[in-house]
């Protein structure tokens, strides 16, 4: 890790107007390192999605600041610094697979033949050869998310924001998608901020994990995953990782109201 790429200081994010205004995130202070894979875990309603929308510039903080610490000249252009992968509706239904994958390049006014070539190449590497002219409704959920991840990588933004991209996948496809993401990331070490509610997933993928409290969310713990890369697929089966998993899980439990056992026999 060379330096820092992103800094949030004392951020508060709130939605709505007047009396119904709800705070989604509060006292949020953290940094993200260049080329770091950072995961954010937290219970539902802890403001995970708001955090990514904040970093993507789709939400403005009402207190505090979000700074991008970049000095490369490329980032002075209109290119976005982040690309966001959504959990649902991650592809435009009216664009073919190749148009979806190359959308960021289309925005950047890359010539059609050139952008389709780049997209087709990556699609082929990730098992989507021959599906370039299909529409999203003809793909499985796993394939759709793969296309969304490819598009985010092709965008060339230095920071990739991912909002539970594999949450809707079955267990097998999820492992596969995680492996593919790591393969892509290994080649082109972008900075990733990955939101998930799956602790195992966070451990498998990340360098560092932030734990958010129940909403309004704030960071209550931070863990490092000190494991060399490339990592084995069943990383969390090791004793050390199982301990880490338990620890994070316990930390998450603390943030939630206790489960009522009334009526249980």
């Amino acid at each position, binding site marked *: 890790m060379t330096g820092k790429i992103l800094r949030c200081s004392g951020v508060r994010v709130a939605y709505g107007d007047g009396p119904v205004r709800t705070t989604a995130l509060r006292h949020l202070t953290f940094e993200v390192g260049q080329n770091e894979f950072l995961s954010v875990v937290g219970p539902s309603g802890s403001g995970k999605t708001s955090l990514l929308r904040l970093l993507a510039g789709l939400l403005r903080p009402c207190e505090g600041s979000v700074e991008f610490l970049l000095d490369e000249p490329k980032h002075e252009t209109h290119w*976005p610094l982040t690309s966001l992968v959504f959990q*649902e*509706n991650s592809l*435009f239904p*009216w664009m073919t697979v190749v148009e979806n994958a190359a*959308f960021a390049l289309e*925005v950047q006014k890359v010539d059609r033949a050139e952008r389709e070539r780049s997209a087709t190449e990556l699609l082929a590497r990730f098992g989507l050869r021959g599906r370039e002219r299909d529409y*999203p*409704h003809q793909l499985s959920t796993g394939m759709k998310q793969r296309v969304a991840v490819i598009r985010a990588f092709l965008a060339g933004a230095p920071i990739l924001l991912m909002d539970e991209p594999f949450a809707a996948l079955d267990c097998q496809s999820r492992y596969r998608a995680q492996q593919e993401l790591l393969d892509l990331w290994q080649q082109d070490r972008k900075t990733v901020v990955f939101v998930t509610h799956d602790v195992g997933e966070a451990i498998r993928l990340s360098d560092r994990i932030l734990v958010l409290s129940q909403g309004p969310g704030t960071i209550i713990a931070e863990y490092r995953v000190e494991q060399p890369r490339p990592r084995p697929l069943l990383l969390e089966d090791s004793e050390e990782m199982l301990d880490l998993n338990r620890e994070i899980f316990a930390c998450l439990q603390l943030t939630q109201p206790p489960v009522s056992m009334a009526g249980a026999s």
Partner: protein
Amino acid sequence: MRVIRSVPAAVWFFALFFTCWQALASLRILDPLFFPPPSRLFSTVGSLLASGELGREAGRTLTRASVGFGTGAVAGILAAALVSSWPWLHRATQPAIAALYSSPKLTLLPMLMLLVGVNETSRILLVGLSSFLLVVMQVSDAVRSVNPDYVNMAASYGAGQAMVIRRVYLPACLPQIFTALRLAFGRALVLTISIELLSGQNGLGSMIWSAWQTFAVEKLYVGVMLAAGLGLLFQALFRILERRLVPWERR
């Protein structure tokens, strides 16, 4: 069995319907004066086609409906784009559009005749108004129901407003635009024939009216069936066009 299944059920229904009709009329169970058998209707179609009357009247009706529909639909799409860009304009005009939309259009004909004159312009204007109202309501609804996720996604990749309109709003609304056009044309046709029935010197509506007045029962039947058939034909054409231009819709 396979042969039976390969023919659409609707074709079987029509075949059965006309066969029963023919049989009942031949057996004099139905009075052929009021229910002329299909065989006589077919020969009437033949003679009306040969004299050119059927083609001429249908052509006039279709021209009226198309000109009214075309101008109304184009104006409707432009107006929908306009009211979608300015929410206050939408709030200001929505009640007026909804009120006009739900009123029977034919009641406006006398008023238009008063203002524009008893001529072709007032007739086409009314057909245009009907298409305009339907299209502007449906399309502005479509624009407002575009999933904001898609707009955000495009924006997060740095797409400007023009690109968001061209690559997100337009394709997202296209299926509903087609539905609106299909419904609007159907209504344009119905309204045109109704106007002709009331005030036209020509067209299918006026042919049907004069058939009634001269008690040309076969011609009356042929006119009504042709009007229904034209509606069916154009609905099908719109659906074919839609399937070609909106290939991403799940069917």
